[in-house]
């Protein structure tokens, strides 16, 4: 075999390898989604969410839902809203500080902590919440137990680093002339941040927030240790146990006793996939319009 032949053979192999890697990934993802849609699409409907309970009674909480996803879906939504209420203001403020105010040294030190937080496995975050309860029980409140509020705090800690990073990146991705605009007109640092930088980076930050919501909605390991249960109806207070969609999927996958329950599991999985998929698409679209704006 001549050198040229060897060369073209290696070229063909490289091309084939790259194409098949892409094809394999595509096929795998399509298989996952296709299978879920194939098995789950038939179960979608009001009955999947509310079972035999009339939906207006379920929505108002007048009657509990025994055989539907409603309480799991509601639990997840409450969890997402609560954790975002805690994490979003802190995360955005932290990102603004790191990008606008902080010295390089401080940036690098805090950046390390943020990366570390982003890397902490969610089960360790859940374990942290659980340990808080153990400590509290020993020290102050013998009746402390895992609950909705605890889970929301832990999830807030889980998504906090993403919010800090996306805010920081959105701000530092702005063109230099925008950054200089305010000071050149006599704005103070905060006025410039508030009236020039934040509005310009708003879309980037918003898409980060939406992605963080998706993460909060999908996480299972944290809530596994901080108070999720299989059957709880709607939480009545922050100190109550709760249900959540990802946990329902996990639970039913292992413990389904009938075909109907299995169908419900497929329905739940499809609903969760659609929920996170919708959040992802929203964030993607917002991000794209932002990029278009600053490329011109």
């Amino acid at each position, binding site marked *: 075999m001549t050198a040229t032949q060897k*060369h073209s053979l290696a070229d063909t192999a*490289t*091309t084939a*390898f*790259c*194409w098949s*890697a892409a094809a394999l*990934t*595509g096929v795998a*993802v399509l298989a*996952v989604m296709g*299978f*879920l849609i194939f098995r789950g699409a038939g179960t979608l409907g009001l009955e999947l969410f509310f079972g035999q309970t009339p939906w207006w009674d379920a929505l108002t909480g007048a009657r509990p839902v025994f055989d539907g996803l409603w309480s799991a879906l509601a639990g997840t939504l409450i969890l997402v809203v609560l954790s975002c209420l805690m994490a979003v*203001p802190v995360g955005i*403020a*932290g990102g603004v*500080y790191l990008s606008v105010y902080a010295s390089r040294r401080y940036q690098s*030190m*805090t*950046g*390390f*902590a*943020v*990366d570390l937080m982003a890397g*902490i*496995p*969610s*089960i*360790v*975050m*859940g*374990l*942290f919440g*659980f*340990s808080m309860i*153990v*400590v509290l029980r020993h020290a102050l409140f013998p009746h402390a137990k895992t609950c909705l509020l605890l889970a929301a705090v832990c999830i807030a800690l889980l998504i906090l680093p993403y919010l*800090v990073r996306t805010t920081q990146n959105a701000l530092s991705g702005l063109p230099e002339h925008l950054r200089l605009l305010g000071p050149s007109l006599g704005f103070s*640092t*905060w006025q410039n941040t508030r009236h020039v930088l934040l509005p310009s980076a708003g879309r980037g930050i918003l898409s980060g927030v939406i*992605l963080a919501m*998706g993460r909060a*909605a*999908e996480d*299972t*390991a944290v809530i*596994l*240790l901080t108070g999720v249960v299989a059957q709880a109806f709607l939480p009545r207070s922050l100190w109550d146990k709760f249900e959540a969609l*990802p946990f329902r*999927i*996990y639970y039913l*996958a*292992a413990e389904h006793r009938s075909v109907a329950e299995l169908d419900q*599991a497929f329905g739940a999985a499809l609903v*969760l*996939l659609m929920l*996170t998929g919708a*959040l*992802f698409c929203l964030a*993607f679209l917002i991000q794209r319009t932002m990029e278009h704006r600053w490329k011109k």
Partner: protein
Amino acid sequence: MFFEIWIRRLLCAAAMVSTAAALCILLVLITLVLPLFAHGGLATVLAWQWLPFNGKFGILPMVVGSLWLSLGALAAATPLAVGLACFVQVLAPGRVKSLCLALVHYMTSIPTVIYGFVSIFLLVPLMRQWFERGTGFSLLTAMLALTLLILPTIVLVFHATLREADRTARATCAALGFSKPSYIRHVLLPLSRRGLLAAVILGFGRAVGDTLISLMLAGNAPMVPGSPADAIRTLTAHIALVVATDSQSTFYHSVFASGLILFLIMALINLALRRLGRSFAP
């Protein structure tokens, strides 16, 4: 001016929350593991047998399980990611390129529990047939599902470096008459070695930290695997199983020790990434 100072302080406090939380988690874990050192219980935790009702609380099989699973998934995901990233950056025609990138971005948003759930119905029966023994819940099953989970992390981080390298080298190499595949082999890959290393380290972190895949698919038997068909238990799954099922507080030390080990692994990973130069956070 007064207002400015307070705003600044407030923002600074918000930025410190992450640092404080990370320290707090480390402190709590250390405090709860500390009794082990005092009572010489370290040897009982760092042992090879988990028979909690006989007083054996060893978590080393879980450490080995975690490592095998993560390294296996990494070994499968890395070549796939390299191929995919090179495909996206160099070989793919315009439309296919943006479609592939969108797909990889989308993969990051697919919930872990979905991968686990689908694998139970697609992958596990396949494995059961293939191995002709066991339940199909095995190291290999979890490894395959985990590959899909960590793939987008590796691809996205590696692709960012690849794009930079491509920007500097493409015109020169085109002028020199490189064919596209040999351009990938001889120029792009050597140029982006550091990026690949960072991507692999991040992927490893993602794999070690994942709970749901191993909990749902790996079989959870607390033993050192002898073959890919064996059931294993990872550190993360161990925490979930012990806390969620047994509530005897004598078991908890092993759980906190597992948590601390995971935390330290993540700290090491972040230090390694730092040494590689710049922030590679996804």
